[in-house]
């Protein structure tokens, strides 16, 4: 058995957002849809404030409420416990969005990539139209289209269905890492098999005290967070006096 999981090391994460951009490129995501994203949080009181950056993605929960709730099994469990979505079965009811405690499922409200379908030049008689640019580079709908995404899912999901992170299952099946892991310049994302005691994931989880988002709901998320980005220290006092 394999149970895929990801550890995000918040000490190493610099909040650059490369994971977000990489994910969008790899999965041909349209504007406004983020399979990988972030929670921003500001704590403290000015001038003593701190800005937290928590990278997020689908938690691929073992007890996934979206899978239980989906009326047509469009949301289902796949290899290694990945929560996958089949757009051909999706009826667009958005019940998975209601049941997901993490806010990581998006709905395609209209035909994706509206901008790149536009036939009008950006500047009349001067520039190409977005559609011409796509055709020029032989893209599919978008100029930066990634055909590898088609291996397990429609390359671009149609309007009227939901979509979400798949742990880059098309890459995992070929022995590659999810693209957000690959693209992270700080190596803050560690991907592996929870069922393998010697996996890097298990080594880190055994060393640091991990936490998961909304653990109290019992969804058994597979995204773990360790450590905290904090390069500073503070003056030692006796109880604050």
């Amino acid at each position: 058995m394999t149970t895929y999981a990801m550890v995000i090391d918040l000490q190493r994460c610099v909040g650059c957002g490369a994971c977000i951009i990489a994910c969008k490129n790899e999965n041909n995501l349209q504007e406004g849809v983020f399979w990988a994203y972030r929670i921003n949080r500001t704590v403290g009181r000015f001038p003593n404030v701190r800005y937290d950056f928590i990278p997020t993605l689908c938690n691929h929960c073992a007890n996934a409420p979206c899978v239980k709730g989906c009326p047509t099994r469009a949301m289902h469990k796949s290899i290694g416990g990945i929560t996958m979505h089949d757009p051909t079965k999706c009826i667009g009811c958005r019940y998975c969005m209601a049941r997901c405690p993490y806010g990581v499922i998006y709905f395609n409200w209209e035909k994706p990539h509206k901008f790149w379908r536009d036939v009008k030049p950006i500047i009349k008689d001067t520039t190409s139209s977005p559609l011409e640019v796509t055709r020029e580079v032989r893209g599919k709908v978008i100029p930066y289209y990634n055909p590898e995404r088609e291996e397990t899912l429609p390359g671009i999901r149609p309007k009227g269905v939901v979509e979400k992170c798949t742990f880059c299952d098309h890459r995992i099946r070929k022995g590659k890492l999810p693209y957000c892991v690959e693209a992270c310049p700080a190596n803050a994302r560690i991907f592996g098999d929870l069922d393998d005691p010697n996996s890097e994931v298990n080594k880190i989880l055994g060393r640091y005290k991990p936490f998961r988002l909304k653990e109290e709901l019992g969804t058994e998320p597979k995204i773990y967070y360790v450590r905290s980005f904090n390069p500073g220290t503070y003056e030692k006092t006796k109880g604050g006096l």
Partner: protein
Amino acid sequence: MVEAKKASPLYIGWITALGIAILAGLFTTYRIFTVGHVIFGATNVVFWTLPLAAYIFFALTSTGLAFVASIPLVFGIKRYEPVAKRAVLLAIAALIAAFISLVLELGSPWNMIKYLTSPNLTSTLWWMGVLYGLYLVFLVVTFWRMGKALCILAFLFAIAASSTLGATFGLTESRPAFFGGFMPVYFLLTALLGGLAAIVLVSLAYYHFARGGLPEEQAPLFNELGKMFGLVIGIVLLFFVWRTIVGLSATYPEFVAFKHIVGSWPYHFELWLGLVIPLLLMAIPSVRATIWGKVVASALVLLGMFAGRMESLLAGQLIPTGPMALGVLEIVTYAPTIWEWLVVAFALAVMLLLYTLGEQYLKLEAAPKTASK
């Protein structure tokens, strides 16, 4: 509801108005199927909007009408027989209106096929669809052949479908402001209230416009319905108040949206115009005995119920979850677009047209043959 004088200007105006609403609805349908849900005011935070509230409203009103029809057809209380057929027809019409709202909320009629070909038995939403589908079948069969067994089945499916609809919201643990296990019971109760309001309003409007007034022999029945109506308003108000107290006392962050809603006009519309004033009208015997008292109370209750369905939906959605909170307000706003209102008008017009045609061509006041057996 204004069928009797076919050629009368009122009748022609009524049918024309319904026709215009249906044509506008068909154009809206075309827009939704071709352009997508982008024409709605929905977002990835508030993803269920007015058309879904309309679905809940019509589906539960249909359920409530089935409950009303069950008084004579299942429980054998014969003096309610004159409203039985009308209630069943209205229940069918309301359910069709609900299905129209739902199909337009989903965005494609073909999606319904996937419901049957790829079922998920752990999903309350799947069960809700199946139960409402079977409920419609039993309603239609019941309308033509009011056998006791069929009526009992329709009644049971009405309970199962509406409570499952409530559970669909109640089981979203991550959104406690949908009020968990409270919802199936609340949906059942409010369904009964909506059904009572609908039968009183439509029947009295029919007698006024088509028959020149309520026949004297029917007055005691409608006075009794008025008493029952008042009692159910009171019970729903009690539940409503407790829901408010629980919501206001809760410390879960998700209830911030509910607290926000308690200060909004849909909430106050639902409370004061939809419950308190109708209760007062039905509590005063001299007002309850009047036609206008019952008409005003039932119309207000239906409007309040509609506002309430939207209010319940928003309570669970106005607080963005996790990364959805990025770049949006702490409590997001929502306003329906004209297209969403046209979906509601479309569904309502189809319901009223079906009822008008039924009232015109079918003998709705004939006593059900098998109910008294």
